[in-house]
């Protein structure tokens, strides 16, 4: 009975859907988290009769075929890269991006990763780092006695040094942009890696080339909407139980066949 296996593929797909929704909900408060969605597609069809085949020797053709599908599969889990809300935090080193860009982060293994989570800190040497301690690229070092940290919309970092009345420019934060940011590979810790699908990073200062502006004292919230996720969860749950019902209905049919043999 093919229906049994077809319904099983449906149950597997909905299980995947619930898994993704639960990860989205778990990351609802994660800075700059971008939600994922499951993308499904149908499996192959078995053609029992093919449309256009001859139905008589006089050249009549079948107007429709007889195709039976074999179920569903998950083809991908693309991220939805829309802008999250901006939350004021009041912390000097919290920076949000309003626009397309990503911060560049130097990984311990030498690779460059990209992130939108701008909750930065300084390490023991005064360098600007992510909460995991990875260096922000290009590197910016704060002197011990610096105060009044200012990060402009265009990414210019300046501080007030003792004995001076004007801010001194320390460096420039640069952003990267991708032609297809959905193609980035996520590696956890809010970090993404460049892939063939994302295209190579285009590096530029904030505020130009559609990079987006920087906003100091703010963080980008996740773009997960609780209402959408819960309604998606209900849909997935119902879809799962409907597929389970198909399994039991197919089983009932088989059982009634078996009961004919007495």
């Amino acid at each position: 009975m093919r229906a049994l296996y077809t319904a099983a593929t449906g149950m597997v797909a909905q299980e995947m859907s619930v898994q993704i929704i639960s990860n989205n909900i778990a990351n609802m408060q994660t800075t700059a988290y971008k939600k994922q969605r499951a993308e499904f597609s149908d499996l192959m069809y078995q053609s029992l009769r093919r449309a256009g085949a001859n139905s008589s020797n006089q050249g009549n053709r079948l107007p429709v075929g007889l195709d039976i599908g074999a179920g569903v599969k998950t083809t991908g889990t693309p991220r939805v890269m829309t802008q999250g809300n901006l939350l004021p935090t009041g912390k000097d080193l919290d920076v949000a991006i309003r626009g397309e860009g990503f911060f560049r982060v130097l990984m311990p293994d030498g690779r460059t990763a990209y992130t939108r989570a701008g909750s930065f800190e300084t390490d023991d040497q005064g360098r600007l780092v992510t909460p995991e301690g990875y260096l922000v690229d290009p590197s910016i070092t704060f002197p011990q006695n610096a105060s009044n940290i200012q990060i402009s919309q265009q990414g210019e970092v300046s501080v007030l040094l003792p004995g001076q009345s004007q801010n001194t420019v320390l460096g420039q934060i640069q952003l990267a942009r991708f032609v297809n940011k959905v193609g980035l590979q996520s590696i956890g810790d809010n970090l993404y890696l460049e892939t063939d699908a994302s295209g190579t990073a285009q590096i530029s200062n904030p505020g130009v080339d559609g990079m987006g502006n920087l906003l100091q004292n703010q963080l980008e919230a996740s773009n997960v909407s609780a209402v959408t996720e819960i309604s998606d969860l209900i849909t997935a749950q119902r879809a799962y139980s409907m597929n389970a019902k198909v399994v039991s209905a197919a089983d009932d049919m088989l059982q009634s066949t078996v009961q004919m043999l007495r």
Partner: protein
Amino acid sequence: MQNALYVSLSKQVTLRREMDVIANNLANMDTNGFKANDVTFEEYLSSKARIAHPSPADQRVSYVRESGSTTDFSEGSLQQTGGTLDLAIRGEGFFVVETPQGDRYTRNGAFTMNEKGELVNMQGYRVRGQNGPIQFDQQDSNITFSREGTITAINGIQNQVIERAKLNIVRFNNQNALVRESNGLYAAPGQTAQPATEKTSVTQGTLEKSNVRPIIEMSRMLEVMRAYQSLSSMMTNTDDLRKTAINKLADTTS
């Protein structure tokens, strides 16, 4: 007497087929761009008694068999995703993708980009524009699809709006003759694609959900199941009848 068994059997075979189709519809109720499938049945008359092979029955018995599967091409509901490359077609029409087997047609507009900056679907097949594949530049941002399918982007270097391509949206005179393949793709053997009419439009940032109506499928499923069970019990009863007949009529003990 045998006829009752065979007629029931022919119906049971088609019911199983219908169950398979319902299972596939329900499994794909969350597949973007999926169109619900249905099976149609027809009566099949047993052949007339001929002189060469005289049949004992003087009345023709009708059986049932499936005549084909039809696709419900009605529009599915639209879901907002906010994705730049998520497209939905409103009205009649299909996107064209290039597969190794030739052009295929789909309603699923969940697209992405490959390493060359070409617009591809989730299987990596290139989406066809009116002048071949749709190519973006690495510097492009703010990609916009108009209602008519014209694709514009803001190019970083020149910082101006550039028209990149136009989507090729096609329609068919006979949609029912399209052949389903996997991954939401359709083949069109023996038909040429016509350009879509003005009523068809493209919406960016949305996807077309599956048009499977779960309630209908569930009630169809119950109907199929009950019909199958009642046929089973009918076959059992027929069998009982025959058993009793053999026992009563052929009782040789007295």
